[in-house]
């Protein structure tokens, strides 16, 4: 058991040891604070860049396995050094800038894209007491900083001075803005029930175990499950992934706002997208899957930050799995789905959460909130699926 306790507090102990070491050399207090902040920032960014490298190869391998092929297995054992190879390729590739492009805006776009992706990592609770920035409005900070990506997408689109880019950028911004609403509402639902906007408090609120072994995560409540699915779908749209990657739709928009980028700038966009995906997975885990809480009481010996990164890996896996399955949405379907299905459903989740809370959180409350969420789901769902009713194909000639 001792080993697990050691592991649990390993990161913070390491930092304390190093800071005390420096204090021994008479380093002033404020400088110590700056150094420890820099160390924390360094490790967080290092961990997420490591996750980015690992995920870029795992994505290709999982997509391959789904299509019954191997995926990259040449560079290093099981292809695990593929990101190194991609990195070298990206760095050595020529970095083209269109002659008539708006040089400054073209150059700044990847930087402005990368800043929010990294800043957003500050508020995620990685473990018990391991939160880089203890903000009591952490969730609001997440969305406030996340709004910066839209500016970056526009700058990328506008800076490349090419029609496809501007169209791709406008579509991407329209998609991100219209999916930001369900994203924020489903986060607010959790904040309302947990009673605070601070991620650490939200994770604390999910620490209880009902009947001894069912974890008190919000995803296991009816309104929480719906809010989690809505948050998940909106997260996919927010990070321009899989069914919502219309802006980079190869078929019609070449590569959307990324058309005129190559070399290291493209690698930065690629990195920002993945780090953004991990950050929003982290937020989903914090809000709905109980952050660093262990799923079963006796499992709490396993270090808390293992649970957090395990759950983030699982959610990231499902995002790749969704990418392997679902086709890309057309722009008007995408918009209708956001405004006419996701928004009403998030209001329904809002009401269901309120009903669940004020009905005493007991079995009656569960039934009530399940009804409040289920009924609009079926009505809206069938209203839309009826329109695209898919009957099995009738082959005229082969019969």
């Amino acid at each position, binding site marked *: 058991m001792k080993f697990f306790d050691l592991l649990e507090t390993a990161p913070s102990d390491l930092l304390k040891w190093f800071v005390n070491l420096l204090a021994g050399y*008479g380093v*002033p207090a*404020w400088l110590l604070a700056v150094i420890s902040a820099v160390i924390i920032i360094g490790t967080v960014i290092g961990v997420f860049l490591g996750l980015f490298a690992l995920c870029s190869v795992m994505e290709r391998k999982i997509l391959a396995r789904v299509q019954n092929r191997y995926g990259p297995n040449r560079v290093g054992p099981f292809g695990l050094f593929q990101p190194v190879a991609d990195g070298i390729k990206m760095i050595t590739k020529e970095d083209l800038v269109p002659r008539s492009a*708006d040089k*400054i*805006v073209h150059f700044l776009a990847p930087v402005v894209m990368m800043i929010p992706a990294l800043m957003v990592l500050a508020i995620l609770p990685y473990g018990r007491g391991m939160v880089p920035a203890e*903000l*009591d*409005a952490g969730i*609001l*900070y997440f*969305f*406030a*900083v996340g*709004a*910066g990506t*839209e*500016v970056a997408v*526009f*700058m990328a689109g*506008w800076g490349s001075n090419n029609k496809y880019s*501007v169209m791709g950028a*406008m579509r991407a*911004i329209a998609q991100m*803005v219209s999916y*930001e609403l369900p994203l924020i509402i489903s986060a607010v639902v959790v904040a309302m029930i947990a009673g*605070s*906007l*601070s991620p650490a408090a939200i994770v604390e609120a999910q620490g209880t175990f009902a009947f001894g072994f069912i974890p008190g995560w919000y995803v296991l409540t009816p309104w929480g499950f719906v809010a989690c699915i809505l948050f998940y779908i909106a997260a996919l749209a927010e990070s321009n992934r899989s069914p919502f990657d219309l802006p980079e739709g190869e078929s019609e928009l070449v590569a959307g706002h990324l058309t005129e980028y190559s070399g290291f700038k493209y690698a930065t966009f690629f990195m920002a997208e993945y780090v953004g995906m991990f950050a929003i997975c982290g937020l989903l885990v914090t809000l709905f899957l109980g952050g660093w809480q262990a799923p079963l009481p006796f499992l709490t010996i396993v270090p808390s930050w293992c649970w957090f990164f395990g759950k983030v890996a699982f959610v990231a896996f499902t995002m790749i799995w969704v990418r392997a399955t679902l086709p890309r949405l057309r722009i008007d379907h995408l918009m209708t789905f956001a405004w006419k299905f996701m928004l009403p459903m998030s209001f329904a989740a809002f009401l269901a959460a309120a009903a669940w809370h004020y009905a005493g959180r007991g079995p009656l409350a569960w039934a009530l909130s399940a009804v409040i969420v289920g009924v609009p789901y079926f009505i809206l769902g069938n209203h839309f699926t009826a329109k695209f009713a898919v009957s099995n194909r009738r082959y005229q000639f082969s019969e």
Partner: protein
Amino acid sequence: MNDLLQKFNALPWDAIGQWLVLLPAGVMLLAAAGAVALRNLIHAALCLTLSFIALGIVFIALGAEFVGFVQLLVYVGAVAMLIVFAILLTRPSDLAGAMSPFAGFGPVGGILTGAALLIALLAFIFSSPAAKTPMPSMPVAPVAQIGNLLMLDFVVPLQAVGVLLTAALIGAAVLAMEDKKP
């Protein structure tokens, strides 16, 4: 080296810390100047976005975190995008700044009134005794308290703003919608 370190420590760090708020304020003023003066409209709009971000950071530095985040979310996320899209949709001829904003004698009047106003304001600011109060310690504006205030004391204004925003949303959509030719 050690006494240098001692002297360095002895500096009144907490007082200096208070002046740090001028850093984002300076960035904001520069960006605002850029937004006003730049001929290329898109560069002006991006400078405006930078000034919004810097204003948000000033609010956070002054301790009002909630307002800073709301400012970032509302202005950078929505208003800046609206302005940039409006610029794209209206495709003004001087996008590349063919005609300088200060061409001709028009702007002289504007700049003069601006300067006069500035002098008047600064005169009042630097003469009024109340403005000389030193900066008190950092007040805590917890989100929970703001939430309670919003929901309890300011619930009527909150609903009014809600109605106003909905009306504005629908109004803007109706105004800007292409009226379908019959």
